[in-house]
């Protein structure tokens, strides 16, 4: 048995559009994912993440390239591949006319779980996701956040070796999100491989063992968090909180040509690619603009790497 849960080689997916030029949504991507890893697939909107996920989950057939899951050819044996996966789609996906419990039980039936085991799991999963009190309610009567809980909880009903999560945390409150990150780590430590896409880079930074950044359907960078941060060596995050926001501070910031910047109330956050020796000079210059209450300087975050690697032009 191969050590990889997923092996992707030169994968291409072209959308042919009537009367318009074809779009290469995935353009020659290759990667492999070790068993039990949490693998992050990152990229800006329209980078090809969802298309790639749809190909990996047999929803779309690739135009060319090879794709193996647990050593099985996904294109030639899609049913065998589907036996090994469960998925949370980007859009909310539930049986609206069924109760929360029936949603979980129906999902379990499709995945071949024995009904006694399914009932026991449903109870434990509902407890975990704090939806037990809605067990007998139809999903159509729940709020958007609760519907999302029901959707994500389904992948915990089964033991498929590979789990795909497409922006799973959308619509989740921060407390539940934190708990789910913990559950995902637990599943990974049991040997389940988790492939996720997210726009929330802090989530990927916290969770992923291995990250692939794509843009325009092509690989931009690949590696663990430390390896990726090396790609952005010389990037620094500066955060200054003023007693009162100095006038024209935005023009001063723009003059520094930052990778990104943000002004939130009296706090200014800038991400810069500069020599280490110049960082203190910049902090000192900015501090002269007003009374500073708090200063923080740190190295590159995943967000810095992401912005630098995927920025246009």
């Amino acid at each position, binding site marked *: 048995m191969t050590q990889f849960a997923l092996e992707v080689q030169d994968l291409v997916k072209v959308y042919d559009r009537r009367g318009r030029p074809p779009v290469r949504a995935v353009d020659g991507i290759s990667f492999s994912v070790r068993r039990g890893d949490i693998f992050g697939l990152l990229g800006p909107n329209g980078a090809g993440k969802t298309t790639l996920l749809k190909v990996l989950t047999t929803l779309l*057939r690739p135009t060319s390239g090879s794709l193996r899951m647990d050593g099985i050819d996904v294109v030639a044996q899609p049913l065998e591949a*589907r036996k090994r996966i469960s998925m949370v789609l980007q859009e909310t996906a*539930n049986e609206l*006319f069924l109760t929360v419990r029936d949603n979980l039980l129906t999902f379990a039936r499709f995945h071949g779980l024995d009904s006694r085991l399914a009932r026991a799991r449903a109870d434990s999963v509902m407890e975990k996701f704090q939806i037990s009190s809605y067990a007998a309610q139809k999903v159509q009567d729940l709020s958007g956040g609760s519907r999302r809980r029901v959707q994500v909880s389904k992948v915990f009903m089964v033991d498929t070796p590979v789990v795909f999560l497409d922006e799973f945390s959308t619509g989740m409150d921060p407390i539940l999100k934190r708990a789910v990150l913990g559950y995902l780590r637990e599943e990974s430590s049991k040997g389940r491989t988790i492939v996720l896409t997210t726009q929330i880079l802090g989530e990927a930074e916290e969770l992923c063992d291995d990250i692939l950044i794509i843009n325009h359907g092509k690989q931009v960078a690949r590696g663990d968090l430390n390896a990726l941060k090396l790609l952005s060596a010389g990037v620094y995050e500066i955060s200054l909180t003023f007693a009162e926001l100095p006038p024209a501070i935005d023009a001063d910031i723009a003059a520094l040509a930052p990778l990104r910047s943000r002004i939130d109330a009296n706090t200014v956050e800038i991400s810069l690619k500069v020599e280490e020796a110049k960082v203190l000079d910049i902090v000192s210059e900015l501090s002269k603009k007003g009374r500073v209450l708090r200063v923080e300087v740190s190295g590159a975050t995943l967000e810095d790497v992401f912005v630098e690697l995927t920025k246009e032009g």
Partner: protein
Amino acid sequence: MGPLAAMVYRETKIRSTNVTFLFFDLFYPLLYLLVFGVGVNAALGAPSLPAGLDYNSFFLAGVLGMATFGIATNSSWSFFLDRDNGIFLEMLTYPMRRSEYLLGKVLFNICIGILQAVITIALGCALLKIRLEWRLLPILVATVIGGTAAWFFFYSVFALRIRRNDVFNGVVNVSYFVLLFASSMFYPLAPLPAWFRAAALANPITWEVDLFRYGSIGYGEPRQLLLEAIAFALFALASFAIAVRSLRDQG
């Protein structure tokens, strides 16, 4: 539990929670028979039918055909509901073949179709004194099964290929009108103009309704019915193959 059983479980759960679904699935065609059938029988009679055959007995096959057609259009429309709920794509990642996805839905439809036929025939016999040819019951049952499946596969092709609900509804409404009225569902074909008769003979509804008519009251020409049965089976198989193909690349 296999995927077919899981799909039947899912459809049963969904349908049993909705009284409107149940009403349309089980009683709508019966009302057609009781209101339209009785009205035509009383007001117009059936002058072009063989002696001893009343309009209610003739129209029973049309109602059974209409029922399988109705189940199919309702059930294919549910693809749009599933798309809107997001569950459609998720289900395509479940461990089942695309053909099993469709066959599971058909299995449930067939259960409903048989139940509907039993209710319609029982009340038709009790209230309208329709006399069934019980020795032909296997043909009747086979036609319910084949008809329910064929029309579901046929309309699934449209529901899967057309992404817009309103366009699909337009297709259903137009085809409903053309297929139902240009057929032997409401009237015998013999007195019709030649062009109309030719169109009706090329219509799968006619093939199905003629089989229902033979299976229920023994009316029909066996050699022509054999040809119609073969044509209808081919229509069902072709629709199934295209529907399975349409399910691929739904992402």
